Each structure stands twice: as structure tokens, then as C-alpha cells.
């Protein structure tokens, strides 16, 4: 490989990396600024350009009455809703995906492919289309502004992802595994739970990570379907985006909320490098 080509390669990779990191770096420096150093124009280097303070980070844990954001409760709300929504979606989605991959369905003109498509096609629905009927439906059921109501909505949001990834995954798990188990005297349930499922852990983890990503990063449903009792992280932070924005606490809150999922990036990369992801994602 010529020197020219390899220089070009590293240049390209480095440039894109800088583009990826840039907003995080900006948020990091901004989170240590105060009113003065934000409103007097762009500044970058602490101690040189501006005097750093911890006000932004402190405001995360103060109540709104004290001019803070009280981010801890929304943080845990987000964790609960994401975990419950992902959990239910993975369980139901894995079961459905297994049946779609292994058995033949024929109801009138409807075949396996059509059922799979029905699951996945739910992703085409823009949140805004569903938000009005969901608003009315949850209102009737008394579930507006509750964690449980949001979990229901997130199941619709996330199950298609679980089905999409798991159908592809099961299609690559050899049929012999099930057949051997059946010959050994297992019933279909035992074959699934004792033999197929333990072999599907990589696929389930990948599907789980995708559900977590899309659940954690959803904004619109949480924005429309909750008001005061329950607040999720993105809603709490966007609420700060008003006319006089406290950029320092905004930046601190943004970094705080983004941090947990950055860990997921490392896990995804690990699976990618081991080759486990290629089976699960096609």
C-alpha cells in the first residue's frame, strides 16, 4: 500500500472522528461556563478564555425552585420505561420471530412474509400520526402521564425492531438444533427454551441493545403523553431550550443523559469485532 494512500486513509478517519467529537467537546467546555462567559461570545479553553465554574453541573441536582433541573428523577424514569419497554418487546418479539422463522403460517392470502412485514412496517408510522389517538386512548384508560402508559406505547415502538433482528437471526440458526432436540424427546416448548434460546443469546443481546437505543432516545411520545407527574430525560432537557437558555446546565444535562448509552457503543463494537453481529444484522 502506497504511503500516499495510507496517509489519505488516516486523514479521512481522523477528520470524521473530529467531526463526531466536536459537539461533545463544545458541550463539555460550555458546561463549565457561567452567564458571563457564554454571553460574551464563543470561548473555548478553561482558565485561558474563561474562568470555569461547576454551576452547570450543580444545577442538575437542584430543584427547579432553586433554578436547577432535578435531573435524577427523569433519569430513573427514563431507565424504567426503556428497560420495561425493551424487556417486553424482546420477550414477545423473540417468541414471534421464532415462530415466523420455524413454522409455516397460512391464513387466507397471508403468509409468514406478510406477518413479518406487518410487524416491521409499524416503523413507518411517524410518531405524530399515533400521538393523537394514543393521547385519547390513554386518557380514556386513565394512563396519561403514567409510566405504565408510556411502556405500552414503547412496546409498539420497539417490538418491530426486536422482530426484525430476531427473524434474521433465527433464520441463520440451523434447523438441526431444533430437530435434534425434538428427536431427543423434547416438546416444542422445551426445544425452544432449553436448546434454541441458549444458542440465541448474541442475537437477543443485539436486539436488546437496539431496543434500548431507540427507547432511550425517543422524545416525541414522552413529550406528548406526559406532563408533570412523569418526566423523561429528553423532555426535561428540551424544556430548558427556551428563549433565555442556561447553556451551562443544558450542556451538563446533555452530557449526563448521553453518557449511559456511550457504554452501549463499546458493547456493540465488541460484538461487531467478534463477528456475532453479522449474523444478527443483515
Amino acid at each position: 500500500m502506497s504511503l500516499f494512500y495510507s496517509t489519505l486513509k488516516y486523514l479521512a478517519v481522523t477528520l470524521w472522528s473530529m467531526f463526531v467529537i466536536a459537539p461533545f467537546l463544545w458541550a463539555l467546555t460550555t458546561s463549565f461556563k457561567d452567564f458571563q462567559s457564554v454571553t460574551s461570545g464563543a470561548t473555548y479553553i478553561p482558565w485561558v478564555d474563561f474562568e470555569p465554574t461547576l454551576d452547570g453541573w450543580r444545577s442538575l441536582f437542584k430543584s427547579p425552585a432553586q433554578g436547577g433541573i432535578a435531573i435524577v428523577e427523569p433519569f430513573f424514569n427514563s431507565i424504567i420505561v426503556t428497560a420495561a419497554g425493551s424487556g417486553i418487546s424482546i420477550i414477545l418479539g423473540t417468541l414471534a420471530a421464532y415462530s415466523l422463522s420455524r413454522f409455516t403460517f397460512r391464513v387466507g392470502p397471508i403468509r409468514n412474509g406478510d406477518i413479518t412485514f406487518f410487524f416491521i412496517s409499524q416503523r413507518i408510522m411517524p410518531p405524530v400520526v399515533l400521538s393523537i389517538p394514543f393521547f385519547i386512548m390513554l386518557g380514556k384508560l386513565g394512563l396519561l402521564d403514567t409510566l405504565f402508559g408510556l411502556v405500552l406505547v414503547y412496546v409498539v415502538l420497539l417490538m418491530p425492531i426486536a422482530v426484525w433482528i430476531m427473524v434474521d437471526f433465527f433464520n441463520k440458526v440451523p434447523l438441526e438444533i431444533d430437530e435434534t432436540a425434538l428427536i431427543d424427546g423434547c416438546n416444542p416448548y422445551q426445544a425452544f427454551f432449553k436448546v434454541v434460546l441458549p444458542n440465541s443469546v448474541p442475537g437477543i443481546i443485539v436486539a436488546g441493545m437496539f431496543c434500548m437505543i431507540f427507547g432511550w432516545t425517543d422524545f416525541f411520545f414522552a413529550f406528548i403523553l406526559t406532563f408533570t407527574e412523569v418526566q423523561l430525560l429528553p423532555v426535561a432537557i428540551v424544556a430548558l431550550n427556551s428563549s433565555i437558555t442556561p447553556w451551562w446546565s443544558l450542556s451538563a444535562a446533555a452530557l449526563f443523559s448521553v453518557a449511559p448509552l456511550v457504554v452501549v457503543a463499546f458493547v456493540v463494537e465488541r460484538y461487531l469485532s467478534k463477528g456475532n453481529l453479522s449474523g444478527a444484522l443483515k
Partner: protein
Amino acid sequence: MNFKHKYMFLLPGLLVLLAILIFPIGFTVRLSLSSWDSFYPGLDFIGLENYVRLFTDDSRFWEAFGRLSLLSLTTVFLQYIIGFSLALLVWKEIRFQRLFRVLFLIPMMTTPVIMTVVWRTVFHESLGPVNDFFSLFGMQPLWLSSEILSKFTVILVEVWQWTPFMFLLLLAGLLSLPKEPYLAASIDGAGPVRTFVYVTFPLMAPISIGAIIIRLIEASKIMDTVYVLTSGGPGTSTETSSFYIFIKGLREFQFGYSAALSITYLIIMIISFTVIAKILVKLMVRGK
């Protein structure tokens, strides 16, 4: 293999999804035939009036739709080119390979709406770092309040946010490619360019098509970015279909009319995706 039990696996998921969705979909269809708004709330029946209004007297909807097509096709095209290039760059031996892979994945793990709030400070026209840089050359571009540049800013943020998804799908695909065709190519003395054109790209075609369709579906819902970054403005210059439905439904409370918009939008989308999928298969899979 065929069992009575097969429905025990399928039905829990299918029924839960149907149970949660049947009411919203049915209700939206019914709502689209009513004149429910904030002055006269209630499910009256006005036939297809809303649809007539939409097709004869609402250029704003169709403009928003055109803008959505422009924005989503452009961003997905850029994401595919960049994502594929990045995947190829870190596919084979490269120093710090895993570090780069993690870095390239990170943006998709972050909440779009929150990162857009950060981007909004980055592109702030008087206090942000971007214009701080441009002011060195005596320029103050209006990133968020000029009609053309605001579209560019939305595209840039979307590319930052979602190129990683494309990168992930394509890299996973590259890593699963068989070794034999490459061996054959190198025996035939094919250089890197020819190998890409005749081996990698054709082998990646099905994966590419899948990745593009998935991204197009997600991109068609573009909403969070616009809501935070520009609120559809200036004027209506970054208003997309979702955002227009949002304004009609949840700002002006014309529930009946916005339901008609939603139904029309969904039908157009389902048709477009079917057509786009067919076109992509024709374009990318040669000799079939």
C-alpha cells in the same frame, strides 16, 4: 415442522401489537371523516370533506412533502456514501481500529433531540463557535434563520446523527462476506478499485438495499431535529410532513383535518417505499 403450538409463539406478540394499534388506526380513519377541532370537538360525520380540502386547497402540505423528500433522500444518500466509506476504511487492518469503530458508532447512541439542542448552541448565530470561526473572515452566515442554510444545517445534524447506523449495518455486512471471491480476485491480479467494483459492491448489494430502506423509513419521520433546531422555520423552509401534521393537530387542534393528513401521508409512504425498494433492487443487483 408444523405444530398446533406455533400460534402460542406468535400470538402473544401479534395480539399485544394489534391490541395497542387497532384503536389508534381505526380512530384515525374515523377522525379523518369528522370536523373535530377546538371549537366543535366531537365525532360528527362530514364525509370526505377533509380529503377534498387536502387535495384541492392545501399547497403547504404538498410543499412540506416535497421538502421531506428532498431532505430524507439527500441525508440518506450522504449517509450511505459516508457510512460505506467509513466501513471500508476500518474494515481491514488499520491502527486503533477498535477505537475508530467505537467513535464512529457513538452519535447514534445519543438522543437526537438532546444533541440537537447542543448543535443549536454550536450554530448559534452570534454566540456559537461556528460563527466565531467564520467571523475571522468577516462572515456571519445565518445557519438557522436563512431559508437555504437552515436546510443545510438540518442535513448536517441528521448526517452526524445517523451515519453511524448506516456504518454499523454496512460494516456488519462487510465482516460477514465470504473470503473466496477475494482470493479469486487477487489471483486474477485485480487492484483495489476493480476488486471493489466487481466483488465487494455486488456482494454488498442486498445489504446496501436493506440499509438504505431502513434509513429512509427512519429518515421520513424526521421531526425531533426540526422541532428543536428551527421549529420548521424560517417561515416554512424546513417544515416536513410530520412537523406540518404536528402543527395542524397539536398546535391548531384541527384533529379531524390532521387525521386526514396522516392517512394520506401513510398511504403515500407505503406506496413510495414499495416503489423505491423495487428501483433499488433494479439498480444495484445486476443481471437479474
